[in-house]
C-alpha cells in the first residue's frame, strides 16, 4: 500500500544512516486537548483511536497522504487511560479513571458509549479478543489498579471471569493466545487464553525497576518489557527459549555539559511491527527507536521529537507508525506547562527501517 507515497519513496533513499528522518512525519489534525494516554490502530482499516486525559476517546481516519480527519469520539467521566479496538474493527473501547470501560459501536451510528466493564478502581488497560463462541461479540479484558483482570462479554453486566493479580495492573498486551499482564512491584503474569482463568506462568520482571509496558511479540512466543529505568527486556514464554532472553539499555542520555551524569528515562511504549516482528521503543526522553530483537541490534534511531512520547502504535500492515508526543508526567507536575507539546505524529514507515537486516538475524 502506497501510503504517504510521495514521502515514502524519498525516505527510502536515506537508508545508509542509522539515524532516521522524522521531518516527513505528519501531525494528526485536531489532536486531543490534553495528554494522550493511548493510541490504537484499527485491525482492519486506517482508523486510529486515541485515548486522552481530557476524558475523551477520539477516532481518526487517515488517508493515503497521511492526512487525518476526526471521525468520532466518545466521552468518559474521567481521564481515559487506555483504548482498544474489537477484532473486527467495528467497536472501540476506552478504559478510564472513572472505573469504567465504555464501548462505542461505530456501526450503530450513536455517539453514546455503552459501559461494558466496571472495576473498583481506575481501569488501566483494556484489550479485546475474539470470542471463541461468537465471533460477532468480542470479549473484553480489562486490567485495573484494583489488582484484578476481568473478562467481559460486552453484553453482560457482570464479568465472565476474573483474575486476581499480585499488584495493581499497569500494562497488558494480547497476541493471539498470549496475554501478558505487567503489574506494580514488577510482577509479570502470563496467561494462556485457552485457559484464561489461571496464570500460565508468573515471574518477576527481569528488570529491576517498575514495569512500564509489556508488548507481545508478533509471533506471540514472548514479550518485551519496558521499565522506568531506561531498559527493555526481551522475554520468551517458554523455558526452552530462555537462553534467548536478554535486556538492553535504551532511552538514556548524558547531558552535554555534565559528563558523569546520565539521565535515564522511562520506556513508555513498545510496539511490535505486525509484519516483520521488529519493534519500537519510545520513552520519556522524547525519542523512539526501531530494534531487531533477534539480531540484537538497533535498526534505526530517531532524533528527539520535542517532548516525551507517551504512546506508540503501528497500523495493521506496519506502514504507519503513530507516536503521541505528549506529557507523560515523568517529571512531575511542574514540567507540565502550556508549552508542552501535545500532538500525535504519523511516521511513514519504510521497509528499510523495520525490516531485519539480512545476514544479521540469529537463529534461535
Amino acid at each position, binding site marked *: 500500500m502506497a501510503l504517504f507515497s510521495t514521502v515514502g519513496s524519498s525516505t527510502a533513499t536515506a537508508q545508509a544512516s542509522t539515524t532516521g528522518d522524522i521531518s516527513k512525519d505528519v501531525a494528526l489534525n485536531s489532536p486531543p486537548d490534553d*495528554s494522550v*494516554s493511548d493510541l490504537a490502530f*484499527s485491525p482492519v*482499516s486506517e482508523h486510529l483511536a486515541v485515548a486522552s486525559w481530557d476524558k475523551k476517546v477520539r477516532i481518526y481516519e487517515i488517508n493515503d497522504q497521511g492526512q487525518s480527519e*476526526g*471521525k*468520532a*469520539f*466518545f*466521552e468518559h467521566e474521567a*481521564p481515559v487511560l487506555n483504548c482498544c479496538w474489537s477484532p473486527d474493527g467495528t467497536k472501540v473501547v476506552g478504559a478510564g*479513571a*472513572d472505573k469504567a470501560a465504555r464501548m462505542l459501536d*461505530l*456501526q*450503530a*451510528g*450513536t*455517539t453514546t*458509549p455503552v459501559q461494558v466493564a466496571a472495576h473498583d478502581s*481506575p481501569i*488501566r488497560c483494556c484489550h479485546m479478543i475474539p470470542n471463541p463462541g461468537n465471533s460477532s461479540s468480542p470479549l473484553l479484558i480489562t486490567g485495573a*489498579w484494583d489488582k484484578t483482570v476481568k473478562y467481559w462479554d460486552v453484553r453482560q453486566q457482570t464479568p465472565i471471569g476474573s483474575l486476581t493479580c499480585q499488584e*495493581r495492573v*499497569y500494562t497488558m498486551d494480547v497476541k493471539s493466545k498470549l496475554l501478558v499482564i505487567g503489574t*506494580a512491584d514488577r510482577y509479570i503474569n502470563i496467561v494462556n487464553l485457552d485457559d484464561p482463568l489461571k496464570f500460565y506462568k508468573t515471574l518477576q520482571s527481569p528488570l529491576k*525497576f*517498575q514495569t512500564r509496558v509489556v508488548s507481545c511479540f508478533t509471533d506471540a512466543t514472548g514479550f518485551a518489557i519496558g521499565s*522506568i529505568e*531506561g531498559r527493555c527486556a526481551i522475554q520468551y514464554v517458554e523455558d526452552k527459549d530462555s537462553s534467548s532472553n*536478554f*535486556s*538492553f*539499555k*535504551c*532511552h*538514556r*542520555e548524558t*547531558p*552535554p*555539559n*555534565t559528563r558523569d*551524569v*546520565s*539521565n*535515564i528515562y*522511562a520506556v513508555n511504549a513498545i510496539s511490535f511491527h505486525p509484519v516483520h516482528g521488529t519493534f519500537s521503543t519510545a520513552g*520519556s*526522553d522524547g*525519542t523512539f527507536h526501531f530494534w531487531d530483537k533477534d539480531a*540484537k541490534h*538497533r535498526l534505526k*534511531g530517531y532524533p*528527539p521529537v520535542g517532548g516525551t512520547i507517551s504512546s506508540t502504535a503501528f497500523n495493521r500492515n506496519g506502514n504507519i507508525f503513530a507516536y503521541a508526543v505528549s506529557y*507523560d*508526567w*515523568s*517529571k*512531575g*507536575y511542574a514540567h507540565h506547562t502550556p508549552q508542552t507539546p501535545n500532538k500525535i505524529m504519523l511516521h511513514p514507515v519504510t521497509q528499510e527501517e523495520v525490516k531485519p537486516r539480512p545476514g544479521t538475524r540469529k537463529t534461535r
Partner: protein
Amino acid sequence: MGKKKRGHPDLEELLARPWCYYCERDFDDLKILISHQKAKHFKCERCGRRLNTAGGKSPFTYCCLTAVDNALPNRSSLDIEIFGMEGVPEDIIQAHNQRVLTQFQQAEAERRAATGNPPPGASQGGNQLKKPKLESAEELKKRLAEHKAKMATEQTAGDSSGEVTPVGVGQTLQTASGYNQSSQFPTTQPPFNNATAPNQQFPYQQQYGGISSPYQQAPSPVYQNFSSNGQQQLPASQYTSPGLTTQQFPAATPGQAPAYGSTPPPIPFAQQQQLPARTHTPPQASSLFPPRPGNLPAAPSLPQRPSFGAPQVNPHLLQQIHHAHLPIAAGAISSTHGPILSGENALIVETVTHPLAASVDDLISGAAKEADNAAARAASAPKPEETPEEKPTKKEKSKPTKLVYSDNEISPEEKMARLPRYAFVPDRKGETALGEAITAAVS
C-alpha cells in the same frame, strides 16, 4: 588489521642511511648529506665558498685549509676525497655499520624493556640458558597424559588448587599449611608477615628445602602453588644460593603476598630487590651469561622477575625451572578468574606440547593478552546482557538525578490521576456527548 606503524626504524633502514665520513652524522638522504658536507666541512672559511669536496679546497691555497673543518679528529685529512658517501674507505664503512648495529640493538633492548615485548625469535627465556629443552615424543605424551589425569582428578574431586598438587617426589603437600614452615617466615620480618593474602597464595612447597639445603625457598606470589611432579615443574623461584638469598618478588596482583625473604639476608634488601630498571640483564645473571640484546625484558604486566643469585642448580634442573617459569607467571595473572592451578596447568600443557616453539615468548604475550582479557572481562562483567548500544539522545536535562522518573512504586499515571485536575468525581449525570460529527461507518 594493518601492520602497526612502528615508531622506530628497522635495522636495514638505519644501515641504509647516508652518513658523513667526517663527523659520523647520518642523514635522511644523500642530498642533505652533500649539502651538509658542503656547509660544514667543505666551506672555505676565508672566502666563504662552498666546495664540493675537500680536495677542491686545495687549489685555493691562499684560503684553503690543510684539514677539513668540523671533522672528527682522525678524519680531518684531505687525503681521502669524499663526496657524499663516495670515497669512504671500506674499513670505515664496516666500523660505522658495526656501530649502527650496536646502537640499534641497544635501542631495541631498551624498547623491549620499556614495552615488555618479547624479542623476535623464540628460544630465549629470561635468564635461560640457550640449551633448548628437548623431549622425546614419548616423554611428551607421557606428561600430557599425566597432566590430563591430574586435571581429571581435579575436576571430579572439585579440589581446590592446592590439593591438586601431587604429593610425591620428596614434596609435601601444602596449601595453607605452608604457614607452618616457620623457617620460611622469620618473625623478624614483620612487614612480610602481615600480608593478608588468601591462603592459597602461600602454598610454599618446601620440597627442596628438605632435600638439598642449597635451595632456599623464596616463595613468591607468582610462583605459588606450582605443582611439581618431579619432571618439569619445579617451582621456579625457589632457588637461591645460600649466599644470595634475598629475593623479593613484588606483588604481582593486588592482594597477593608481597615477598618473603627466606633467610636473613646477608645482602641488604634494597640493594638486591629494588633494581629499578631491571631491564634485560639481571645483574646476577650477567655474570653467568653475557648480556644479549635479545635478553628478555620485564613485561610490564608481569611481576618482576626474580633476581637470581647464581643458583647452584644443575643444568637440567635449571632448564626446567626456566621452562616452568613463565607459564606460572601467566597462570598467576589469570588467577583472578578461576582456579589458579588449572590455568597454570593449561599453560603448562601448552609448553609441553610445543616445546620446540620454546613458547616462552608466546606465553608472555599470551599472559599479557590473558591479563588484558581478564581486565576486559572484569570491565564488561557487570553488564553482560546489554547488547544493543546505548542510544545517544540530545534532550538536555541539567538535573543530576539518574532516573528521570524515580518512583518505583507508583506509576506516573496513578500520580497523574490523583491530581485534582483529573480526579474522578462520580456524578451520575449520565453519559453525554458533545455535538460533533460522528460517522459510524468504518469500513
